């Protein structure tokens, strides 16, 4: 069983279809599967439903799939940094299911963990709760949220071994592990594939069982909001 593929295109061969649901890792532009997104752009797959906290920016990340109108629906918590995303939503061209960020993360984890539904306080008394089952536990009201099972997960990690064990780096971990577990198929892109045994088994963030295919590639890793301080100021 070989999990390592030569290119993003090859790794996605046979798993893309119009109308599919994709769970994508990343927060803002941090830790996004930029190479796999480009390959989906090239493949031209349409009517996508994408569960991802954000939708990239104009011209980078998931933003490139919005520009081509390959996306039918987003399941996201934040659209603030993406003018085209907001425009398509406000004009009704794009469906948008707003999920609170923690609810989205938990829905992805639940979907991957065989949990079809869980109760949360998040969103009680807001539009998020409308149409959802309400239930009392110990005198407090909670709403039922559903696990998400996606046709495909696309995630980005720092390093991986050929068995699919993945290690993430700093806050680029974010949604990648829960998104990876939610897919029936998970394809991962990494900065470096290391030999078997090079990863410390105590320090693997995502065990290889979750990863079906993987590629190694060069990442732009664009910074969305560069903030610094001057050395003199310290």
């Amino acid at each position, binding site marked *: 069983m070989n999990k390592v593929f030569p290119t993003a295109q090859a790794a996605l061969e046979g798993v893309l279809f119009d109308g599919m649901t994709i769970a994508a890792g990343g927060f803002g532009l941090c830790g996004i599967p930029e190479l796999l997104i480009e390959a989906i752009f090239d493949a031209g797959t349409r009517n996508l439903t994408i569960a991802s906290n954000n939708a990239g920016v104009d011209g980078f990340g998931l933003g490139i799939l919005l520009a081509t109108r390959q996306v039918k629906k987003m399941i996201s918590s934040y659209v603030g940094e993406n003018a085209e995303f907001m425009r398509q939503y406000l004009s009704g061209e794009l469906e948008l299911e707003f999920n609170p*960020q923690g609810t989205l993360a938990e829905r992805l984890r639940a979907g991957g963990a065989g949990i079809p539904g869980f109760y949360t306080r998040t969103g009680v008394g807001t539009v998020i709760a409308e149409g959802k089952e309400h239930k009392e536990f110990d005198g407090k009201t909670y709403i039922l949220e559903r696990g998400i099972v996606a046709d495909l997960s696309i995630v980005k990690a720092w390093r991986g071994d050929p068995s699919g064990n993945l290690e993430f780096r700093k806050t680029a971990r974010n949604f990648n592990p*829960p998104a990876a577990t939610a897919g029936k198929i998970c394809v991962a892109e990494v900065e470096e594939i290391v030999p078997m045994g090079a990863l410390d088994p105590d320090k693997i963030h995502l065990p290889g069982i979750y990863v079906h295919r993987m590629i190694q590639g060069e990442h732009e890793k664009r910074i969305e909001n560069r903030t610094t301080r001057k050395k003199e100021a310290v």
Partner: protein
Amino acid sequence: MAEGQKGWDRNQMAARAALELRDGMYVNLGIGIPTLVANYIPAGVNVTLQSENGMLGMGPFPFEGEEDPDLINAGKQTITELPQTAYFDSAQSFAMIRGGKIAMAILGAMEVNQEGDLANWMIPGKLVKGMGGAMDLVAGVGRVVVVMDHTSKHGESKVLKHCTLPLTGKGVVDRIITNLGVLDVGHKGLHIVECADFVTEAELRAATEATIVD
């Protein structure tokens, strides 16, 4: 800032909000003015900042040239780590938020009302940002402090009897810090905790649509 100017500016609001912090607290700071609170943590008070994108122990902005694209906060700003920093994924991050492990969140707001309702994520038909992690934070953390301008650009009160915008949370706000003062949410209405510099209680009441009791 000129001596005698009425009310607090953004930095003064942040400095006032920083007085809410207690030693040993784990705190989440929202985008905007709340982010500035980190600059005013009182001496001797050791707090650990959580960033909901997956980090405890958030450090200051990096020096120029030392930005790391893999190290950002929830506002997508480049930041740094500290000796006590721990990273985790988004499911774990919100597990600790929802599970009540974070003592306090300091958040911005568009509107707040006398029952502690908070609106800060959208203006229908006009502006959509999304709730991000705010709905989870207000539902989960121990104490919610809101920092906001007391009135809109048109002079209308943003501290209301009833919120007009879609809510972020219902009955979730504990304390409101504005450019005009500090108010607590009580069972029967708001209580004045203090007035901002050179703001009278009468002025604070006049700028507040919500019911202020005693």
